[in-house]
């Protein structure tokens, strides 16, 4: 089977880092052509740096580009250090980046990869959608070169930054709206599914016991990241939001989804950044999003554990 041409657009971020590892571990499935970074979990300078540090550990010399520092219209959200720490990737020790430098901006790199692609490319955004919003707004001609978006963002049963909104969408609702309105198919790994995609302390020890460098790094990322989940969010484990967007592409059969119309709220007093999922098809609008709402959790953890073992 032909490999899936893939771009990951991210803001590492602990769960972005694990998503990158999961994508890199499946080189038989993915042709990872670029990694673009965006401000979100931390400033774009930090997420750009973090992405390259993680890829250096993985040993994958893929072009990485720095993207938008600010949301398209609004001011950036603050307060993310409570989740990801000052560096955006606190916890494990990481080496300095050692990749072939890429002199393109995220916008330029996205355009280049799409222009050069012979078949449509899958894009996996796991941070705020700013780079994607800019791409689609400025170069709508490239839409036809995008097969689909498998995103981490949103959620219909609750938010995680405000009551109604999930962080990645709230961080740049206008960009998200451009993407959701683009007509390009979207697979949405929102909180509905990601809150079910958690790793318990015991399971994290199994990952650590793989013993290879990347598994140990993933376990250490989970050690740090899970503190927020246990202490602030009172969740039953470390919630691996972003890896869901990659895992779906790798093993869709472990996920359950429903095709729905989804709108993004951009002017609500309390609902700004909400993904409005038309679960019951009240509006009869085009069903533009496969909304994932469940995952076979043991299979997800098994996939992660075995894939991480394949890395360095």
């Amino acid at each position, binding site marked *: 089977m032909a490999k899936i041409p893939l771009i990951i657009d991210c803001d590492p971020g602990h769960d972005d880092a694990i998503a990158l590892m999961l994508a890199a571990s499946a080189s038989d499935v993915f042709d990872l052509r670029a990694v673009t970074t965006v401000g979100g979990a931390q400033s774009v300078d930090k997420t750009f740096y973090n992405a390259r540090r993680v890829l250096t550990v993985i040993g994958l010399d893929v072009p990485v580009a720095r993207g938008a520092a600010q949301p398209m219209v609004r001011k950036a959200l603050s307060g993310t250090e409570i989740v990801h720490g000052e560096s955006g990737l606190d916890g494990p020790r990481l080496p300095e980046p050692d990749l072939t430098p890429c002199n393109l901006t995220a916008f330029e790199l996205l355009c280049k990869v799409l222009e050069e692609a012979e078949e449509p490319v899958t894009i996996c955004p796991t941070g705020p959608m700013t780079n994607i919003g800019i791409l689609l707004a400025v170069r709508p001609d490239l839409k036809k070169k995008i097969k689909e978006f498998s995103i981490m963002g949103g959620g219909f049963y609750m938010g*995680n930054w405000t009551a109604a909104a999930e962080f990645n969408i709230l961080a740049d609702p206008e960009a998200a709206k451009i993407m959701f309105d683009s007509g390009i198919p979207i697979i949405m790994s929102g909180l509905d599914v990601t809150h079910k995609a958690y790793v318990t302390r015991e399971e994290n020890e199994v990952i650590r016991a793989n013993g290879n460098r990347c598994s140990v790094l993933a376990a250490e990322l989970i050690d740090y990241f899970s503190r927020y989940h246990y202490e602030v969010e009172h969740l039953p484990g470390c919630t691996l939001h972003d890896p869901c967007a990659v895992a779906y592409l790798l093993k869709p059969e472990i996920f359950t989804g429903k095709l729905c119309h989804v*709108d993004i*709220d951009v002017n609500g007093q*309390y*609902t700004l950044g909400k993904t409005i*999922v038309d*679960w019951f098809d009240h*509006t009869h609008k085009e069903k533009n999003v496969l909304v994932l709402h469940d995952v076979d959790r043991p299979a997800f953890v098994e996939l992660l554990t075995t894939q991480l073992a394949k890395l360095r």
Partner: protein
Amino acid sequence: MRKIPIIMDCDPGHDDALAMLWALSEPEKLEIKAVTIVAGNQTLEKTTRNALRVLTFAGVHNIPVAMGADHPLMRPSIFEEGVTEMVHGQSGLDGPAMPEPGFAPKKMSALQLLIKTIEESEEKITLVPTGPLTNIAALFLVRPDLKEKIERISLMGGGAYTGNWTPAAEYNIYVDPEAASIVFNSGVPIVMAGLDVTHQAYITREENEILRQKGGRIAVFAAELIDFFSRYHYEVEKLPGCTIHDACAVAYLCHPEIFVEKQCHVDIELEGSLTAGTTVCDPGNYEGKEKNATVLYGVDREKFAELFIEAMSKLDK
């Protein structure tokens, strides 16, 4: 257990009617002090007539009924002839044959009846609104001092995970979001039976046949209400049974143990062009605001169905 004195504020409506019957069936737990009516499932004239017909059919003539708001507090009414017909029919209570009302509503308004009932009560009153919240908001605007005589509000409305009129908003809240905002911000404890729980509180076709076969006139009447009401649930909403939304607000007062609840802050969205009327629930407490509502997130469905059937058949004894 002491009886809970309640005022039912409703817009019957099939599920309002079933909620009212359920409340009547548990006289050892609930005492209906008054019924106030609001426009919602149908026009005010029709919802009033329906309430009177249901009470008459149940042989109850001594509960005061009064007519309330025929339009929302601030917004133009979304209510146009026909818009809710697909759910509740032309009468607002299509399906079973019913007698004409055996008594008339009080000459006073719903607002006056609410005030009088609350003022005269020695105990705190529990409000059970199962329609748009216009009457209750009017009460709090006019007589905020009476809030302290209200034990709590057990309402049907809203939903955290979905809407049923727009993708984000449930009908009762969507009709009059400002009224809902006044009620949710009133400081009076609120139990919210929204779509999260009411979509789980359904009666299957098989269960409705069990109800019908109880054979009494109320049981058969309830089964016929469900026959009509469930068509919308099966055909339009594709739900697995007849969703008895409003009955949850009553059932919670009688049988709180069968429900799963969570204390949350709830805001009512007023401005979003796609989200007006959304009950914005914060079960994760991300905003750290005061927890003003007990949101019902689940119910033991089989127990609910069993209790519902038992309640309907009890009235025939």
